[in-house]
């Protein structure tokens, strides 16, 4: 009968090097995630998502899936702990980021008192395009909420609290700023009238449907098992044919939706928001594109990151 060698794990504080916890009789095939759960038992306020364990205080933290016996340690492993601060799950993060803009825009649309001049309180704008803009904006965020609850499968578990405050201020603040101008009593409708509004509305709807299709496609890819060895590819849905040209068509469609929204409302703050969003999403898309190209040898070379044939 073989005797399994058990491991011992000693956990020290990464900054002060003080001894925090000693775990013995640890199975060699247990993962870092298991060790975090064991550590959590001794320190209940440090739930696993808040823990960062590494083999050296200066190293990057180990992943939850790493197996203990595959690590470069002897049978007694010393690990350094770092507190990542309060963490919030990605689902909650997305919900918070979407509910804010949805509700703040409506505050401005219904011209809640004290926002605009007293005589305009609780009135509604005479312009058709303002009603359309409210519908589009609200649908955009409702679609995001539905996707967050039923479609997306998030990879990393959590996000630090401070990041959420920063992200929410950005989304909520910008939404309030652009809603202020679109629903303002002195709003000027687009220069080319109904033509401009209708074309932009059509493109907006196409981009929203496109964005949703891409999310569904990515979700199905995930459903085949994590780490499946296939990169996203076009399906029978014509909206996914953008995959022939870009690695991240969801970002392309998102930028397209906001661009058409800014043309529909002819509002400079919306255009500015679109520009900032584009810069951020282009950075993310380039990162993803690089990751795909590195991981898959037969990755199509005609694909760009976010703009077909250009970026």
């Amino acid at each position, binding site marked *: 009968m073989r005797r399994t060698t058990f491991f011992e794990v000693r956990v020290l504080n990464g*900054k002060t090097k003080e001894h925090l916890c000693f775990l013995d009789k640890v199975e060699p095939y247990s993962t870092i995630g298991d060790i975090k759960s064991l550590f959590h038992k001794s320190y209940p306020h440090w739930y696993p998502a808040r823990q960062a364990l590494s083999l050296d205080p200066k190293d990057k933290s180990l992943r939850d899936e790493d197996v203990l016996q595959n690590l470069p340690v002897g049978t007694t492993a010393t690990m350094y702990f770092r507190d990542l601060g309060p963490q919030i799950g990605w689902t909650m993060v997305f919900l918070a980021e979407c509910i804010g803009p949805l509700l703040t825009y409506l505050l401005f649309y219904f011209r809640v008192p004290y926002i605009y001049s007293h005589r305009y309180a609780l009135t509604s704008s005479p312009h058709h395009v303002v009603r359309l803009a409210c519908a589009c904006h609200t649908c955009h965020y409702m679609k995001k909420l539905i996707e967050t609850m039923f479609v997306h499968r998030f990879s990393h578990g959590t996000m630090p609290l401070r990041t959420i405050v920063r992200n929410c201020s950005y989304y909520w603040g910008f939404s309030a700023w652009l809603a202020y*101008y*679109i629903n*303002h009593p*002195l*709003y*000027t409708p687009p220069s080319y009238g109904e033509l401009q509004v209708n074309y932009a509305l059509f493109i907006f709807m196409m981009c929203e449907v496109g964005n949703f299709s891409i999310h569904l496609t990515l979700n199905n890819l995930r459903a085949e098992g994590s780490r499946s060895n296939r990169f996203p590819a076009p399906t029978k849905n014509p909206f996914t044919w953008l995959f022939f040209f870009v690695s991240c068509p969801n970002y392309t469609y998102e930028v397209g939706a906001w661009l058409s929204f800014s043309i529909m409302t002819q*509002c*400079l703050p919306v255009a500015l928001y679109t520009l900032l969003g584009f810069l951020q999403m282009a950075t993310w898309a380039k990162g993803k594109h690089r990751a795909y190209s590195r991981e898959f040898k037969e990755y199509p070379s005609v694909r760009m990151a976010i703009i077909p044939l250009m970026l």
Partner: protein
Amino acid sequence: MASSEEDGTVEEKENNNKRRTKSALATAWLTFYNIAMTAGWLVLAIAMMRFYIQKGTHKGLYRSIARTLKFFQTFALVEVGHCAIGIIRTSVIVTGVQVCSRIFMVWFITNSIRQIQNEESVILFLVVWTMTEITRYSYYTFNLLHHLPYFIKWARYNLFIVLYPLGVIGELMTIYAALPFVRRSGIYSMRLPNKYNVSFDYYYCLIIVMLSYIPLFPQLFFHMLRQRRRVLHGEVIVEKDD
């Protein structure tokens, strides 16, 4: 595996050579830049003193040195570039904030709002800036040439304790004095209704700028204090981990 290692060492040598030639070029450019800026601010200092001695008043002093000031202060934008390429090891953001606040004062306050050009607070911050910049640029120059006299090092890391707050007071008083003129003239402002459905009120923007000094000034001041402790007393400051 072996052949790629060889390639690695050849490449490394080339990179080291490139780095060495790059730092020779970078050092030459930085030396030229710092000498030029020291000279420029010295010219400004002397011009200001000459004007005051000859005319006995500070009224009209700003107009007489305006062009030189604008040239040399705007040229300081290249320092942000230095940090970005990496030939200067300072944070791009810290340098960026400092240079931008100077550019803002020069171009968007004193240059465009004529009525405040004869205020005393303008003279205050001009004197402070001149003294700070001459000390700073001569420090860099001597440092690059490896002949730094102790008194310049002392001046650079001690004078700021008095000059920095005085400069902030001068700048804030100038912006405050400019407020009524901005409100009356509506400069740099855009009102509704307009084709682009946007509005901008420079008056409130200035108030926000003044308020932003409250969080920003202590951060920059304590940054300089930390530098001072490190350079003058050789203390090792452990940065707080996030």
